[in-house]
Every structure is written in C-alpha cells, then in structure tokens.
C-alpha cells in the first residue's frame, strides 16, 4: 500500500505545483523556462511517438516544428486569421507534411528513413531562407500576434504558461490514449518484430503513416505555440540543434515511455539555461554531445525507465491504472467470445496451392508445387533441409514473391497480397526461428495478436468512447483465455525475452491463435524442444484442429508428424515427390530414398 500511495501523493503534489507555478514563481524568467520546457515537451512527446514506439528515428522533426510555426505566423500576419485558426492550420499543414513523408519513406527503415527525414528538413529550411517573398528570408517574421481569448489577450507569461500547459497535457493525453490502445500496440509491435506484426494482420503502412501524421501534427502545434510566444520566427527554427535537443530529451528521459519525454524536456530546457551563466554556448553544445554519447552508452533506456526498472518496460506501463486493471475473472465475457468463435464460417476455408514456383536469383526453390489443406485437418509438409518447405510458407503468407502458380483460399486468391491482408483473411503463420515481441510481456504479446479482433480507430481511441473501453476489456479476457489454452497462465506478466525457449514457442502459438486463424501454418513448432515439451506441442496442435482450424505443419520430428497428421506432403528439391496419409508415406519408396534414408527400406 505504501509504495503506490506514496506515488499517488507525489504525483498529486506535482500536479498542484504545476498548476500554481505562476503564483509562486516570482521570477518571470523561470516562468519563461517552464513555457519553453512545455513547448519542448510537446516536441519530445511527438518524436517519442515515432522513435520510442514505432522505432523509427526522425531527424526531420525540426521541419514539422518550423512548418507549424511559419504557417501559423503567416496566416495571422498576412491574412489576419485568429491565432487559434492559425495554430490549427499549422497543425494540419504539419500533419500533411507528416503524411507525405510517411507515405514516401515508409518503405525505408533505419538509416535510410533518417536520411530522408534529414534531407526533407534540409530542403524546407533552404526554402525558408530563399523564398524571400513568403518568409522574408533570413530576416524572419517579426510582430506575430499573441493569442487572445474573448476580450483577454494571452500576452502575459502567466496566461501563456497555462495555454502551453493545457497543450502539453493534451499532447500527453493523446499519446497516453494511443499507446494504451490497439493502435499503440501496433506501433510497438512494428518496433519489436515487424514480420511477426504483419503475420497477425497489422498493416505496416497504415500504422506508420498514422504515427507520422499524429507526430507531425503535435510538432506543428509546438511550432505554432512557439511562434506566438516569441512572436518572431526565422529560419533558425529549422536549426538542427532543435532536432538534436529533441532527440536528447527523448533518449535521456526514456524512449518508449510516457513520462520520459516530459522529464527529458524539463531537464534539458532547464540545464542549458542554468549553464548559460557559467559557460559559453559552445560548451553547452559540447556537453550535449558528450551527454548523448554517455547516455546511449550507459543509460540506453533513459532516466524514467531506469528509475522504474522494477516495472517491466511494457506498454501497459504508460497506459495508467486503466490498462493495468485486471479484467474480470473468467465469466460472461469469456463465454461470449467463445460463442462468437463458433460463428466463424470455417467450413469452406480450404487452402489450394497449385503449381507454385519461387526463384532466388535464378535458382528455383520451388518448381511447381501443388497441395491442399482442408479445414479441421493437419497437413504436414516434410522434406530435407533446403527442400523448399519454409519457402512455401513464405510464398503462401505473402512474405515472398511468387514466380508462377495460384494460391487459392476459400474462394479468394492470396497471390500478391501483403502478409497483413492474408492474415485478415484468416491465414496466419508462425516462424521457424522463435519469433515473439521480446521486450513485451506475454499478455502484451497476445494482445498484439488480437489486433484484428478490435475495431477501435483513431477517433474512438482519442475520445475514449465507452465501447472502446469495453472492447479493450473483452480483448484482455480473450488474451487470458488464450494464454491459459497454451498453458502459460502463470507467466502472464513475464517479459517474453526472459522466458525459457520452450515457453517462448508457446507464446508464439498463442499470438498466432489470437489472430483467429482459420488456417494456421506452423513452421517447426517443436524444433529445439525436449521430449515432454514436444508431446505438449503435439497435443496443442491436435486441440487446435479440434476447433476446426486447418493446420499446415512443417516439422522434422517424424514421430510427431506421423502421429498427428491427416495428410503428409513430401517435398524434395522444390517438387512434391509424394502425398498421402502417414502410413502410406512411411513406406513410399521414393520418400524413403530421398528423405528417410535407405536404412529404413532395409528394415
């Protein structure tokens, strides 16, 4: 009781102090620092949404900031728009730029994404310098009006402080709601394991563009607030220094946490101001650089994460008490969801692979393979390593381009669809190498798997509608049911990377099942498992079949394959050399020669 109680008391005191700051802060200079910290906090929150949650580093955020600042400044100066309209327009313009960057750059990852964002900021900055007629060039735009509320002008520092405070709170709330929702889970899933995220139906493009748009809008708002506060903008707003400052704030505070950017912003706005008296600007920047290097090296998770190291770095951490609340113990909700499961029209869902061919750099890995998987049956794909089994998996689930052939599924054609679209049709796969969302708890892993079962969109999440909350609770119950199904109930809140290998494989299964497959493709689910664990997996696969789900299994353990399969398909060098019930396969002469070894024939 004492620890959470202390925490709540501390937070309460902080809120009171923040709300009354203009009253007890005698020196307006300190208030100025707080206002700047608030603006930077919005920026840091916006960058954190990309860097901390989706894992994409943008070094072009100064551009969104500058776009927001210039748009609002120009509209209020030249067209006499009200400041509020200007701020909104600035946000929207920045969001548009974010959309464009997201659309264009979403194919790129890591370093390339960074370079495109830097270049984008570079171009925008040069435009602001050179387009004299619009921006007044390097001289900048002076005399930007302050906002007013009815008859009152928010010219005073205290008034502006409350405005910025409200905006920061709003930005934080947007982040918190997003992060605690299925949208935020999709972001984190992409950061942690993109192929796995796609396999459970998360649309990479949509998610990343959404993150970029929201993030850019927030940066644009910060820019507008900055412009109307300092009442002057110049190309300096695009300075790379701002971007670096934002990055440092996020990294120092703790990327992927909700409190981190706030702490970072406060610290790194106040620190340089404190240093300003003592040292030159160069020393400050030099210190910045050194701090960044040291942080990454020794405190990679940031201040907030390191302080709360006891709590696993997970998405529920930021989502506040609501997300952490335990769902109802198994009861009505569970029954409802199993009822909805039986409504699924599974009967006509058969997979038909016809003449499938795949090539790698001229070498054919699959040369015209055909087979079927009937619903509610287990079909095993066996063959020597390199025979093309995993290639077939990748081709069926959209991870590979097919040269030739048809992949039909329940009346639809899977050819050319993205993995997430294929998952949406009910075809879900697992991966040969253990593939989980490593930094997240078992619960969060499965919650991500449940992505397609939720419907909450951006508007619903941000307005925290009742049905969205109900849906969230329903998903949690469903996640617990699935975790129990694979037998991991006791490990529900353990971080996936800390689990034993065999347990991780079970998490994978639970994640795949969460996507509600009608057809499940399992790639060596028992690889690396010991005897008893193998039996458990065999048993699970049988129980999955009992639910009417079709299973396509790749496995090397012949005892398991022969024990549970309804049909066995044997691949060798990219062609099917045999197909039939296990008993027939075991004595099939060609199979024995190619795969089982002629010793078996001698037996």
């Amino acid at each position, binding site marked *: 009781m004492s620890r959470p109680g202390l925490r709540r008391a501390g937070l309460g005191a902080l809120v009171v102090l923040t709300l009354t700051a203009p009253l007890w802060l005698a020196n307006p200079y300190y208030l100025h620092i707080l206002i700047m910290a608030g603006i930077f906090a919005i920026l840091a929150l916006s960058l954190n949404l990309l*860097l901390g949650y989706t*894992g994409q*580093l943008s070094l072009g955020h100064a551009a969104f900031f500058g776009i927001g600042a210039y748009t609002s400044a120009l509209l209020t100066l030249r067209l006499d728009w009200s400041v509020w309209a200007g701020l909104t327009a600035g946000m929207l313009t920045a969001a548009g730029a974010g959309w464009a960057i997201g659309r*264009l*750059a979403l*194919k*790129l990852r*890591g*370093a*390339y994404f*960074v*370079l*495109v964002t*830097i*270049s*984008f900021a*570079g*171009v925008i900055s*040069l435009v602001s*310098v*050179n387009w004299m007629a619009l921006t007044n060039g390097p001289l900048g735009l002076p005399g930007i009006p302050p906002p007013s509320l009815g008859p009152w002008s928010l010219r005073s520092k205290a008034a502006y402080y409350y405005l910025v405070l409200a905006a920061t709170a709003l930005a934080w709330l947007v982040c918190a709601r997003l992060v605690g929702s299925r949208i935020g889970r999709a972001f984190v899933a992409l950061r942690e394991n993109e192929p796995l995220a796609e396999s459970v139906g998360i649309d990479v493009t949509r998610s990343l563009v959404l993150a970029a748009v929201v993030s850019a809008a927030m940066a644009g708002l910060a820019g507008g607030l900055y412009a109307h506060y300092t009442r002057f903008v110049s190309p300096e707003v695009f300075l*790379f220094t701002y971007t*670096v400052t934002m*990055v440092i704030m996020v*990294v120092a505070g703790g990327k992927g946490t909700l409190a981190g950017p706030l702490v970072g912003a406060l610290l790194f706005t106040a620190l340089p101001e404190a240093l300003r008296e003592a040292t*030159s600007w*160069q*020393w400050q*920047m*030099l210190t*910045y*650089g*050194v*701090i*960044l*290097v040291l942080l*990454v*090296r020794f405190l*990679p998770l940031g201040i907030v994460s390191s302080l709360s190291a006891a709590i696993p770095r997970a998405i529920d951490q930021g989502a506040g008490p609501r997300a952490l609340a335990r769902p109802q113990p198994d009861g009505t909700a569970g029954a409802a969801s199993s009822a909805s499961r039986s409504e699924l029209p599974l009967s006509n869902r058969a997979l038909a692979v016809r003449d499938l061919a795949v090539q*790698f*750099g001229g*070498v054919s*890995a699959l040369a015209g393979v055909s087979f079927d998987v009937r619903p509610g049956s287990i079909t095993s794909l066996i063959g020597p390593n390199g025979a093309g089994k995993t290639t077939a998996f990748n081709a069926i689930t959209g991870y590979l381009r097919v040269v030739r052939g048809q992949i039909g599924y329940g009346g639809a054609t899977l050819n050319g669809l993205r993995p997430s679209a294929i998952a949406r049709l009910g075809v879900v796969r697992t991966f040969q190498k253990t593939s989980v969302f490593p930094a997240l708890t078992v619960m969060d892993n499965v919650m991500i798997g449940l992505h397609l079962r939720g419907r909450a969109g951006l508007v619903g999440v941000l307005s925290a509608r009742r049905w969205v909350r109900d849906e969230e609770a329903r998903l949690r119950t469903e996640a617990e049911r699935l975790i129990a199904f694979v037998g991991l109930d006791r490990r529900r809140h353990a971080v996936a990377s800390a689990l034993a290998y065999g347990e991780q494989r079970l998490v994978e299964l639970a994640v795949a099942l969460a996507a509600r497959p009608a057809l499940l493709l399992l790639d060596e689910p028992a690889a690396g498992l010991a005897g008893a664990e193998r039996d458990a997996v065999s048993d699970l696969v049988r129980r999955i079949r009992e639910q009417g789900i079709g299973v396509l299994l790749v496995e090397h353990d012949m005892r398991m394959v022969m024990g549970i399969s309804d049909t066995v398909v044997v691949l060798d060098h990219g062609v099917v050399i045999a197909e039939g019930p296990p008993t027939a396969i075991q004595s099939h002469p060609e199979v024995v020669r190619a795969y089982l070894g002629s010793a078996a024939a001698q037996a």
Partner: protein
Amino acid sequence: MLGGTYALLGIGLTLIFGLMNVVNFAHGEFYTLGAYAAFAAVALSGLPFVPALVAAMAAGVALGALTERVLLRPLRGQSIDTVMLVMIGLWIAMQNAELLVWGGVAQSIPHPFPTAPLTFGPLSIAPLRVFVLAAALALILGAHLIVHRTRLGRAMRATFQDPDTAALMGVRIGRIHTVTFALGSGLAAAAGALLGPIFLAYPAMGDLAALKAFSVVILGGLGNVAGATLGGVLLGIAEELGAGYVSSGYRDAVGFVIIILVLLLRPSGLLARAERVG
C-alpha cells in the same frame, strides 16, 4: 574539381557507412579536423604543405581508430539507431570542440603554390587547384587499390559480407573494423586538408561536407568505391546545374533532393549490383 573532393569524402564514408553500416554523422567533422590539422601544421608549426597534408591524414586516421575502439566497439551488434545516436553525439561534441579551440573565425591555410593561373588555351586554372585535383585522384586510386588489390582489402570486404565466415578464415574482425573506420576517417581528413586552402577552414564546414558525402554514397551505392567516385563527380555537376538553372541559394538543396529521390526510386544506388536473395 569539386567532384573530385566530393568523391574523396564519399569514398571515406562509403567504407564506413556502406561496408560497416555505421551511419557516421561525424564524418564531416573528420573533414573539418583535416582542414584544421593542416592549418595547425602549416601556419603554427611551419611545416611545408605536403607533409602537413600527410599529418592531417594521420590525425584523421588516429582519431578515427580511437573513435572506433572507444565508442563503436562496445556497441557492435547493437541496433543501427543506437550507433547513429552516438555518432550524432560525437558530431555535436567534435564540432563545438573545434569552435572552442579555433573560434568561429574562418582560417585560411597558406600554401606554396603561385596564385597566377595556368592557362591552357581557353582554360585557366590555379596551380593549387591542379595539385588538389591530382592529389584527390591519387588518394582515390590508392583507396581503390587498397580495397581491391590487397590482403587487407580482401579481408575488409569479406568481413562486411559475412563476419562469421570471415572470422572462421582467421580474420580478426575487431581489427578490421578499426582499420576500416580509421581509413575512412583519414580520407575525410585528407579531403578537408586539400580543400582547406581553397575554401578556408571554419568549424561548421563539416555539416555540408557530411551531407554531400551522404548524397555521394547514396548516389553511388553503399560500399562501392567506383560508385562513390562517379557519385562525387555527378553531384558536382548536378550542383552546378542546380545553382545555374534554379537559384544559387538552392545549390545545397541539390544534395538533399538527390538523397530523397535516390532512396525513394532506386535505393541501391546508380551502380547497383545484383542482389542475391536467400
């Protein structure tokens, strides 16, 4: 002319970014370092120009090796983003350290070449520029020979194609990383020392240089020495055209636009080699 030094910058970075996959935002700072080291050697220590050039390159190599050992080696195997953040930190720190040491005033590096231009028919060119171009070409050729003709270069290429297998061949991977980074940094420093006498040395000179190096590398394809050479020349020409036809204010935008366009349209660079999948 400009293309030659762009190429030199690009080759250094193509080794570091293309082969080692380190997004070296501090690359421009090694260029700046080269210029100041040359300045210090000539103007302060009274060294002749050519030895000063060598000294500048040595400084780049030494600091590059140190950077790799101290900053990068502990981070090997970490995500590219982590490394990138460290390099941003180094960039900011180095640039401001230079500001502190040298002040914000641009320094001109004395050189021994006569100022009267050489005239070849309609062409006239300063002897300094002839020397710079020749030296740049020699360094490019040297780098190419090291990478493609020596045991060390072979080990470098092998290491960055397949580190595990290279280790199985007995290559000491750590050493190759250090040497590659040092070589890349040395080339950047050489570029700085060569261009210093023409353009003056000032602390922020590295920012644009780094941008241009990235454009060159991306244009030429990662890890491709020949590509970087071509990329350097192309960037030089593109900038002239951009400045001529659009506006001289947008000269530096050419590099940005090239990065964006090439990455979006042809991410493997102009001299793409066939990717082997699987």
